[in-house]
C-alpha cells in the first residue's frame, strides 16, 4: 500500500470522525425526538462508510459484510423509531 493511499485513508477517517461528532452533537442537542432519529440514521450511514474504508485499508472483504449488516440494521432501527413516532407503538 503506497503512502498516498495510506495518508488519504487516514485523512478520510478523520473527516468521518468529525462528521460523526457533529451528528452526535445533533443527537444530544436535538430539540425533539425526530431530530435525534435523523441524526442517528446519519451516524449509522457514516459508520457504514467507515467500515468500507477499513475494508480498503486492511484489504479484507470481511468488513463488507459488516457494512451490509449495518445498512440493514440501520434501516430496521430507523423504521421502528419512525413507526413509534407516527403511532405511539411499533407493531399495531
Amino acid at each position, binding site marked *: 500500500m503506497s503512502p498516498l493511499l495510506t495518508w*488519504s485513508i487516514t485523512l478520510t477517517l478523520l*473527516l468521518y470522525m468529525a462528521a460523526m461528532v*457533529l*451528528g452526535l452533537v445533533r443527537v444530544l442537542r436535538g430539540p425533539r425526538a425526530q431530530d435525534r432519529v435523523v441524526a442517528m*440514521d446519519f451516524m449509522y450511514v457514516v459508520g457504514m462508510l467507515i467500515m468500507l474504508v477499513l475494508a*480498503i485499508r486492511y484489504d479484507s472483504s470481511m468488513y463488507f459484510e459488516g457494512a451490509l449488516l449495518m445498512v440493514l440494521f440501520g*434501516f430496521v432501527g*430507523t423504521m421502528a423509531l419512525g413507526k413509534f413516532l407516527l403511532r405511539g407503538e411499533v407493531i399495531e
Partner: protein
Amino acid sequence: MPPISEAIVALLLLASGCIALIAALGLVRLPTFFDRMHAPALVQTLAAWCVTFASIIHFSTRAGEPRLHIWLIIIILSITVPVTTAVLARATLFRERQEPGSNLPPPLRKQMPATRPDQPPAP
C-alpha cells in the same frame, strides 16, 4: 497496483470524507427539522457512491478481475433511504400538527370524499 488507480481511489475517498463533513455541518447548523432532513441525503447518495466506486476500483485492480459485490451496498441504500425519509417526514408532519400554534397546512385527506363515487361499495 498502478499509481493512477491508487490516485483515483484516494481522490474518491477524500471526496466522500469532505461530503460527509459538509452533510454533518448542515445537520448541525440548519434551522428547522425539514431543512435538516436534506443534509443526510448527501451522505446516503454521493458519499456512499464515492466509497463504493473507490472500493470497486481498489479490489478489482488488486484481484486483476472485476469485483462487483460492493454494488449491493448502494442497491440496498437506494431502496431503504426513501422509505425511512418518507416515514420520518410523515411522523414529523403528524406530530407537528398536534402541537398548538403550528402553521402547517391541514392534511389533504380530510378534503376528499371517503370513497370514490365511481367505485361500487364493498360488499
